């Protein structure tokens, strides 16, 4: 069939000029890029240029085996907008700034309260910033968090990432918030975002991540203590394991919970009164005890644990209700259950939430006393 051949010829005829026109376009080698590892956003002292961006850049080394120590470069720049700051930064760097690999966004504590929305807009609008990058609050400032390299850090993978990915440490005190999660919680009524707080311990040269911050639109952020952070993690089933110290009726032991499940729903009563129903089941074993234990008393220990947990969780909820913040998402649960035209307005809801009753059931089960009795 001659037309097949002509087809090939035609194809080549078309392709050739295109190739000659287009070759060399936009061809940029990987070593002409510099990868951003973290972005820190702070409030600057300059009135006109309120944003201060700090970037941590990977410095490529030819072999990580030969130089296991991490090497980074840093750029800091103030700007009127975030984009302007980045544009100014590009003039400092001989290579193209590549944001696609940045995994952590640290926002300075003082900026968070005022400009959360503008920052979000910038982060979401840029297509090259990952929606799965972690967002955290930097204390005392994002710049210090970004610029610190703790001891024992590996090349190519900043130690800070290990706090948040599920592969490294699995601490019960660390809240992990992805950018997309932050966005949806910020925009939605009825659930409030929680961000981890990264604190810098300058002297010991390491980080401390055990507190978190609840963010509510147009309100002061509320800081959760490490105890509350742990409680939040248990209730939102974020932590894979959790430790509870039980100090009741003369017993003093530590229960390690390795399987937890929590359900919560909102029961609406008359006159816009609501009751929060929380149902938690905790399964675990005893990992430490001051007193010798009896295996046949496991049921009794479980009861103690239930009591302790109930106190602890109730305290958390009462505090949240008191200040009117909703990190667990009762409001969302209410919305997902009620037809939109029969819902109470958001003001009514806020009022109802502040006066909500708590109905908590805890079902704790200790399966073992560990290797010894």
């Amino acid at each position, binding site marked *: 069939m*001659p*037309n097949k051949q*002509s*087809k090939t010829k*035609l*194809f080549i005829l*078309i*392709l050739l000029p*295109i190739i000659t026109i*287009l070759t060399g*376009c*936009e061809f*940029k080698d990987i070593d002409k890029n510099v990868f951003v590892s973290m972005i820190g956003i702070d409030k600057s002292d300059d009135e006109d240029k309120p944003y201060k961006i700090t970037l941590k850049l990977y410095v490529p080394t030819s072999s990580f085996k030969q130089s296991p120590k991490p090497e980074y470069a840093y750029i800091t720049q103030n700007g009127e907008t975030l984009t302007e700051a980045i544009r100014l930064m590009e003039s400092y760097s001989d290579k193209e700034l590549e944001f696609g690999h940045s995994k952590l966004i640290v926002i300075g504590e003082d900026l968070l309260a005022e400009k959360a929305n503008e920052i979000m807009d910038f982060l979401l609008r840029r*297509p*090259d910033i*990952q*929606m*799965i990058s972690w967002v955290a609050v930097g204390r005392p400032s994002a710049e210090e968090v970004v610029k610190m390299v703790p001891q024992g850090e590996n090349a190519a993978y900043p130690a800070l990432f290990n706090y948040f*990915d*599920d*592969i490294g440490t699995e601490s019960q005190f660390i809240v992990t918030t*992805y950018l*997309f*999660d932050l*966005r*949806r*919680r910020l*925009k*939605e*009524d009825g*659930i409030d975002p929680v961000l981890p707080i990264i604190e810098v311990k300058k002297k010991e040269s390491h980080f401390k991540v055990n507190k978190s911050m609840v963010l509510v639109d147009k309100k002061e952020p509320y800081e959760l203590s490490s105890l509350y952070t742990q409680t939040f993690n248990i209730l939102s089933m974020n932590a894979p394991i959790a430790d509870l110290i039980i100090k009741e009726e003369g017993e003093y032991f530590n229960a390690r919970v390795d399987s937890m499940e929590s359900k919560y729903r909102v029961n609406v009563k008359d006159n816009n009164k609501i009751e929060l129903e929380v149902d938690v089941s905790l399964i675990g074993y005893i990992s430490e005890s001051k007193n010798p234990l009896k295996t046949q008393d496991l049921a009794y220990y479980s009861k103690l644990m239930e009591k302790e947990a109930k106190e602890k969780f109730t305290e958390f909820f009462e505090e949240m209700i008191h200040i009117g913040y909703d990190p667990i*998402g009762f409001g*969302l*649960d209410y*919305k*997902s*259950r*009620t*037809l*939109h*035209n029969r819902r109470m307005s958001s003001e009514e809801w806020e009022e109802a939430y502040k006066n909500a009753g708590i109905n908590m059931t805890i079902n704790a089960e200790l399966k073992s006393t560990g290797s010894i009795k």
Partner: protein
Amino acid sequence: MSRYYYYLIFINMVANIIASVPSILYESHKEGSVSSMILGLVAGTIIVTIYTRFFNAFPGMTLPDLLEKTTAKWFYKPFVLFLAFMWFFAGLITLATYTFLLIRYVTPEMPVIQISLSIILSVIFGCLMRTERVLYTIELILLVTLPLILFIFYKTYSGNSLEWDFVKEAALYVNQLPDLNSFSASFFLFLGVVNLFMFNRFFTKKQSFNWKHVTIIAIISTLNMFTTYFIPIGYNGFENIDELVYPWISTSDSIRMEYFMIERVLFVFLLFYLGIAFVSIMIHWHVSIEFLKFVFNLEKLKIKGFKLGKFIPIPFFIGASLFTIVKLNEYQLLRLSSIFYNSLIFFFPSMILLFFFIKRSMKNAKQAKQN
């Protein structure tokens, strides 16, 4: 039914996950999207059934063939030409969407023309293939891309970050009255069946088509529609879902693969969805070129024995699509697709009247022959 028949239907459904359909649906997420989708599902299944039954009655016959036999020349020539434009436009929408996506996410520095050219050049020669080869290509490309895409869907459903409460909240807007845009967008998902206008020439034997096949199509399209609409809501929240320009891209970027070579699902999704887009454009433009061939008798055009005819539409296709893509912006594309979808909900159901006419005259012709 032959498995190739299902490909035609499902590619249109799956391809539109990434195109403008979800965006159009989200525009009225607080009005009538959910109920429009249910309505679209019913209407879509009905139209799929009617169209399939009609073409099943004439195995191996394309719509132009049937029109030629039953209607006058002044009618069918312009009509088929019109159809050709319509199919070209359907392919163009996918092409433009994908060009914008690639430039936004994969190669931001590349000129638009270069990106769209890469898609057009790879697709265009496929459109000239024989119909059966187009179907074989579809099957193979699906075989390559679909497992990964299904894996990504699995990842979205199984991920911890999928918040079902958002989904429930969105679903509760079901009691709103349906609106036109959302209905036509969800109705469009079913219109893969109209490719039978041309592809029916491949199905030369009468196929069995009964309620079982309709159920399969209905179930799969329900799942597909559910995924299209609700999964991005589960990941991105309900309240401001309409502010996302590419809801599915943001959703796929919200999933992380911890242990793979590639960490961001976004790129896997985008690059493998390219296969679906490729196939979708190929189907539409193949049909369009076949219509053009029919209208202008392009097959007969020869220069020194070389069949030039079928190559004639190609420069026009390339030129027209490049021109449109350069002129268009994202918003215009969205509006244009919305208008296109809206026009289809009037056009294709009214085609059924034409089908009645064709069926009757074919029957009469048959009887006349017997007598």
